[in-house]
């Protein structure tokens, strides 16, 4: 093993320099491990050759679970035997990514004993990522994690680990309890999370307001975005303060309001709330003066995904406004209804957003039991290719 210690990594070493914290330093922090030595070796090789050296292989995981572990194998196993197996464990993060030093240390201790000692805090879906475990280590890791109250996250065609913004824990703009519902849904759908039974992955992200600090509209099959129904709460005195201290209310606020529903006369800021589209801009610029209304809830959007196959999708409006109170039964029923219909008719590797476009939003709504409303669309159809049904025609002609 000693020879490994000696292996030079000049290209990687260059990335230890510079003001930004270095992932190479992080890797070297754990370099006492042979596995990490081999990781450095493989990685340096990739830097030399401009190509990766990992391959996917047979499914690996823990007993009774279908998700939570990503199998990875090196294609240079003979040269770097200690990364022949280099799997990822996804551990379900706590809502809002809050930790105590103690909890963090528990995780470190477990990972110290059984893996590379390298992590991602966090993966883009939101999980804690343990980066680099051998197959034989998976069960022990799992046992120790659960003993300390942790569990694996999702992977494969299951409900992926839900995530949420910091919300009510630290943000004055949260229109519902993002942490609470994220925890509730995660616990309520443990089977869907651990045992892939869907046509493809299904992601849920909770954002407390339209600022969407978890990028749910771009990254979740179900995007739950907090909003409100009534009037923006205005503290005119504070508005004047902002004006005094240099904010150009007209230019920076009124002129940038997408619905142009604000008027500033130098003394008061008037808002035509009926026209407000709850974009958050004015509140963002004047946090001390403006607050969302009191009738709070969320907009449920559906279908975001990455490009493959049909091109990337943003989520689209599914339920314009829903109250978000425990036990969140409406939301759970909605999930169940979606999973039933999509689960039965979705093709293999067809995300729900693609599925909706294939079967048509109109008929999808019918199956889910939702009424079509104009809020769901940017505009009605422009093409005349209407699948008329007899009822419509008969009703009109009789």
């Amino acid at each position, binding site marked *: 093993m000693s020879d490994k210690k000696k292996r030079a990594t000049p290209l990687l070493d260059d990335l230890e*320099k510079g003001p*930004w914290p270095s*992932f190479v330093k*992080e*890797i070297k922090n*754990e370099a006492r491990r042979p596995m990490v030595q081999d990781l450095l070796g493989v990685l340096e090789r*990739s*830097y030399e050759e*401009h*190509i*990766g*050296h*990992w*391959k996917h292989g047979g499914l690996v995981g823990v007993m009774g679970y279908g998700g939570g572990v990503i199998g*990875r194998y090196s294609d240079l196993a003979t040269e770097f035997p200690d990364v022949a197996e280099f799997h*990822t464990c996804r551990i379900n993060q706590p809502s809002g*990514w*809050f*930790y*105590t*030093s*103690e*909890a*963090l240390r528990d995780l*470190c201790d477990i990972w110290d004993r059984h893996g590379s000692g*390298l*992590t*991602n*805090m*966090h993966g883009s879906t939101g999980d804690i990522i343990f980066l*680099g475990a051998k197959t034989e280590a998976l069960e022990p890791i799992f*046992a*120790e994690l*659960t*003993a300390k109250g942790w*569990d694996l996250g999702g992977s494969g065609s299951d409900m992926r680990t839900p995530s949420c913004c910091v919300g009510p824990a*630290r943000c*004055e703009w949260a229109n519902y309890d993002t942490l609470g519902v994220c*925890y509730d849904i995660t616990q309520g759908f*443990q*089977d869907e999370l*651990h045992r892939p039974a869907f046509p493809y992955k299904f992601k849920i992200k909770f954002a407390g307001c*339209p*600022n969407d*600090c978890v*990028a749910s*509209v*771009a990254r979740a099959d179900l995007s739950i975005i907090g909003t409100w129904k009534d009037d923006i709460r205005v503290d005119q005195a504070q508005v004047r303060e902002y004006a005094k201290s240099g904010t150009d209310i007209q230019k*920076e606020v009124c002129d940038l309001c*997408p619905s142009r529903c604000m008027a500033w006369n130098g003394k008061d800021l008037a808002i035509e709330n009926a026209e407000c589209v709850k*974009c958050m*801009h004015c509140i963002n610029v004047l946090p*001390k003066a403006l*607050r969302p209304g009191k009738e709070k809830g969320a907009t449920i959007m559906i279908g975001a995904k*990455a*490009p*493959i*196959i049909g091109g*990337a999708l*943003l989520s689209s409006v599914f339920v314009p406004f829903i109250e978000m109170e425990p036990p969140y039964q409406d939301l759970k029923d909605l999930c169940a209804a979606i999973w039933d219909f999509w689960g039965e008719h979705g093709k293999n590797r067809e995300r729900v957003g693609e599925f909706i476009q294939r079967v048509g939003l109109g008929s999808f709504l019918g199956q889910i039991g939702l009424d079509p409303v104009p809020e769901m669309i940017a505009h009605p159809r422009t093409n005349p290719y209407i699948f008329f049904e007899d009822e419509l025609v008969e009703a009109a002609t009789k």
Partner: protein
Amino acid sequence: MPERKTDIGPPHYEKFLPPVIKKNYGKWLYHENPEAGVLVHVAESGDKLFTVRAGTPRLLSVTTLRAFAELADKHCGGYLRFTSRNNVEFLLADPAKIKPLQKDLAALGFPVGGTGNAISSIVHTQGWVHCHSAASDASGVVKALMDELYPRFVNMDLPAKLRVAFACCLNMCGAVHCSDIAVLGVHTRAPKIDHKELPKVCEVPTLVSSCPTGAIRPATVEGKASVEVEEQQCMYCGNCYTVCPAMKISNPKTDGISIWVGGKVSNARHEPMFSKLAIPFLPNNPPRWPEVVEAVVKLVNVYATNARKHERMGEWIERIGWSRFFKLTGIPFTKYHIDDFTHAGETFKRSAQLKH
């Protein structure tokens, strides 16, 4: 070994919330951002929570995590969190601890910043560190970029937030498709088929249907059921490789990086937008990817000097128009910029409203 438990889910977050949050949960009144990386949240009760945010490489050793834990114990009762962009946040009740914490973080080499109108950490993916589809490394490109963008992280001197994201292949883990600036690894050659391996490890029908352009057709090679690729139709997305390891897509000579601009996800002012192609191809040039770094820094600077206050990259471009954007940045406009996929027609300019 303790007895086996399953389906317990994550620990309840409440266990990890500091007292000031428990007390004022959902009762915050407003916040301030006095300096880069420092947030003050004021509750209706008058209580205050002080947040100090530091950038991380996201790939963190347990050694560093333990160091964070120590800092948390020392300055804020052991309470900390991570952000949706992989920064670490220390949650202080006592403002007197801010300076000392900043000093300790500086000593450890973790920059305080990323708040307000700054460039926060780059959301990124695995790259050569762990993934098989990677057309480039993730951590390396991000490190090279952030070393140069560092001043934009520790200051708040941009017109608005500027979100940079990196993904190492078209799967776009990290959802670069809606970022102000997106850096995307791209393959540029059709997959090489391993006809020996294929029949063993892949299902031909699944493989055929995995191709967005229908470039893959069933074929019998040396008597075995395999596939052939109509190279004219292949645009190198790599989806065939994702479903079938025998369709090697990576190529050390021709893999590289593309740059995309003008995406956003917030609903503030403008509706969410996809990122659009700015530069189709730059070479993989480790360890510092100078071409990529130069291009991104240029984009940031042109934006910073031209955009109006509160204008995100995409909002700015929409106001000045794409021809102006290409002029200002000096990026050549090519046929590669013109969409030719399914909804291409929707991206054509169907109006005579032009600046001449």
